[in-house]
């Protein structure tokens, strides 16, 4: 008896609540929440503050909109979006790396082409590189970008007696010479760390590119038009191994993580390290602006792209599942408004991915130099290789190389095997890669 009474009370309450809910909902129809899943604080410290400012401005200009920015970490920023999209609950805006990281999602229908939402004459300024385009549509807008190369310690160079003409080295032989001089002086020439595997992505992107004739080549390697086990395409491992075998890389490369290895450079224990441009301000603070220099990977390659520089562009995409694509596009346009892109530089020392930004504002000579790389840059190879291949071939591969588990040739064969396996496991993706390839020109 009592329980039936209780049940009645419950039902009444439930009806009451839902009625209230309906009234509330109809009253506040205008209220909109834009959800933005993002990443980037890890490589660009202070980005959170910039984003908060941008959101504040946006909310002021659109009083009915709340922007909910959720910072994801490196682990989940890429695995959660596709699943959420498939479940029909994607964020409105999502941070995205370049190349396959946009394209595979786009092919699955998780990314909205931006052309319909952002005026053409604005979109063309939002640098996203050709790797964000598919069948004539642009799927991603740039956010910020940076050069990718090497840092060297000028005072260590001097201490070891590296001649002025070799500062910094430009060809492979020069590099070896510099390393030998440093080594003879008891200085670790190069610091790298493979324990967390991340450096594999940087190595393949900075080295393999020199053996390529076209930005289409890495995709061809994966779809089977070129072969990974062709000596030309594992030559980059041979070069890296040469540095290692000659003792030019810190002996604990296998037991250090990326940032730990970088720290050897920061502390002045190593003369060179691989780095992204966003770290330069911190390095200048640690070692003194006059003590460090930036250099590109010395040239060894025979490919037409051997002389090219590497840069990276981070960006943002809109989900087709978003109910407010117009507002999401508005938000991207705000990110690219003059005051906002200038704030990226003024507040963080980061280069905005917008070609209306005046590079003369870059007063830091080192970052200025990396800006020149950006202008002369080509693709980032890591963005053109499906993860199933890249993760094993480059991330794990760099460990196998330094730990002596596989020779360069074996790594080439492994990548070839992985490419074949990938094609077999993802037949539904393969045609898209061919189509993508079709649209890419050098």
């Amino acid at each position: 008896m009592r329980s039936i009474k209780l049940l009645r009370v419950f039902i009444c309450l439930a009806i009451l609540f839902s009625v209230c809910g309906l009234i509330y909902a109809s009253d506040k129809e205008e209220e909109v929440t834009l959800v933005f899943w993002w990443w980037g604080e890890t490589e660009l410290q202070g980005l959170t503050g910039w984003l908060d400012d941008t959101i504040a401005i946006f909310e002021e200009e659109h009083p009915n909109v709340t922007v909910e920015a959720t910072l994801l970490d490196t682990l989940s920023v890429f695995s959660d979006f596709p699943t959420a999209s498939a479940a029909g609950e994607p964020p409105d805006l999502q941070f995205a790396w370049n190349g396959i990281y946009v394209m595979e999602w786009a092919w699955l229908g998780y990314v909205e082409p931006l052309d319909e939402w952002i005026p053409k004459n604005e979109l063309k300024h939002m640098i996203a590189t050709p790797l964000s385009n598919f069948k004539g549509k642009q799927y991603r807008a740039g956010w910020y970008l940076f050069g990718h190369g090497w840092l060297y310690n000028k005072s260590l160079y001097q201490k070891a007696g590296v001649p002025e003409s070799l500062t910094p080295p430009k060809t492979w032989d020069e590099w070896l010479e510099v390393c030998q001089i440093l080594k003879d002086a008891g200085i670790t020439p190069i610091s790298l760390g493979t324990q967390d595997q991340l450096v594999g992505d940087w190595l393949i992107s900075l080295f393999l590119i020199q053996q390529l004739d076209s930005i289409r080549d890495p995709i061809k390697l994966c779809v089977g038009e070129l072969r990974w086990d062709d000596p030309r395409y594992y030559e980059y491992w041979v070069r890296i191994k040469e540095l290692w075998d000659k003792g030019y890389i810190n002996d604990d490369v296998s037991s250090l993580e990326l940032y730990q290895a970088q720290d050897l450079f920061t502390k002045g224990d190593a003369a060179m390290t691989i780095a992204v441009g966003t770290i330069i301000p911190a390095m200048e603070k640690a070692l003194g602006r006059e003590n460090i220099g930036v250099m590109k990977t010395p040239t060894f390659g025979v490919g037409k792209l051997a002389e090219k520089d590497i840069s990276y562009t981070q960006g943002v995409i809109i989900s087709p599942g978003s109910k407010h694509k117009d507002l999401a596009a508005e938000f991207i346009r705000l990110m690219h408004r003059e005051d906002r892109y200038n704030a990226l530089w003024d507040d963080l020392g980061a280069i905005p991915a917008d070609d209306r930004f005046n590079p003369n504002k870059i007063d830091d000579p080192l970052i200025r130099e990396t800006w020149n790389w950006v202008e002369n840059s080509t693709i980032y190879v890591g963005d053109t290789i499906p993860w199933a291949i890249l993760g094993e071939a480059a991330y794990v591969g760099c460990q196998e190389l330094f730990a002596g588990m596989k020779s360069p040739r074996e790594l080439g064969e492994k990548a070839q095997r992985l490419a074949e396996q990938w094609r077999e496991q993802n037949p539904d993706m393969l045609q898209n890669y061919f189509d993508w390839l079709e649209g890419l020109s050098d």
Partner: protein
Amino acid sequence: MQNTKLLNYNYGNFFKYLLIILASLVCIYPLFWLITVSLKTQAQYLASKFSLPWPLYFQNFISAVDNEKFFLWFMNSGILTVGSVALCTIISLLAAYAIVFMSFRGKQIIMNSIISLMAVPIVVMIVPLYILFVRIHLMSTYPGVILIYSAVCIPFSIYLLTSFFKSLPGELLEAAIIDGCSNLKVLSKVIIPLSGPPVLTLIIVNALWVWNDLLIALVFLPRTDMRTLMVGLTVFKSKFNLDVPLTMAGLLIVSLPMIIIYIIFQRYFIRGLISGALKG
């Protein structure tokens, strides 16, 4: 004759002590090292990795705690631990009560299934649950993860409680029934007050498990502000790891709640782990 035996005896004893002390040293040294490093500055640490810290430097602990995220993660770990353990304890008490004191069909099957769940690898469940949670929007929520943690803790808890209930004298129950108590009353007024030690044991063992878990939190709480301490520690390790003493101070703080509970409740702790194994 007597003398040599005595000598042998002492000789043997010497080795026994040597062995046990050596084992203790090996077990405690990493923890000791953790503490010493956390009391050093980065410079002191780099100068010597295993010297004693002097002068003592407490700033690391302050810096570690003075971090918005750290506090957030601490809260998350706390909420998940308390929530899961509470839910699991209540559900297990009800179920164990029914299994031991009531008769119904399929009892043996239910009991056996529950026990065999204890050996199911948790990783086997993450793919289906991941997809399910995305579909029903339970990713990065407390209820979703509490559900998983409780489910994982329930089999062991039911198992432990049933073996304890079986050892309770039947007369107590009879008296209560004669007094006209309802079933729920018997549980709350008679059984539970008697179950202090095993329930405490359960709470401690499960709390240890939930607090220390990495895999589930890693998969089902992807949002940075929903991370637990263990995941935050692992994912963000490389960001902070340049300052080793700071990292170590963080590690120490993270482990502290369980170490304290262990020291206070050592008896229950050990008993719980053993009874899980011994009573059948």
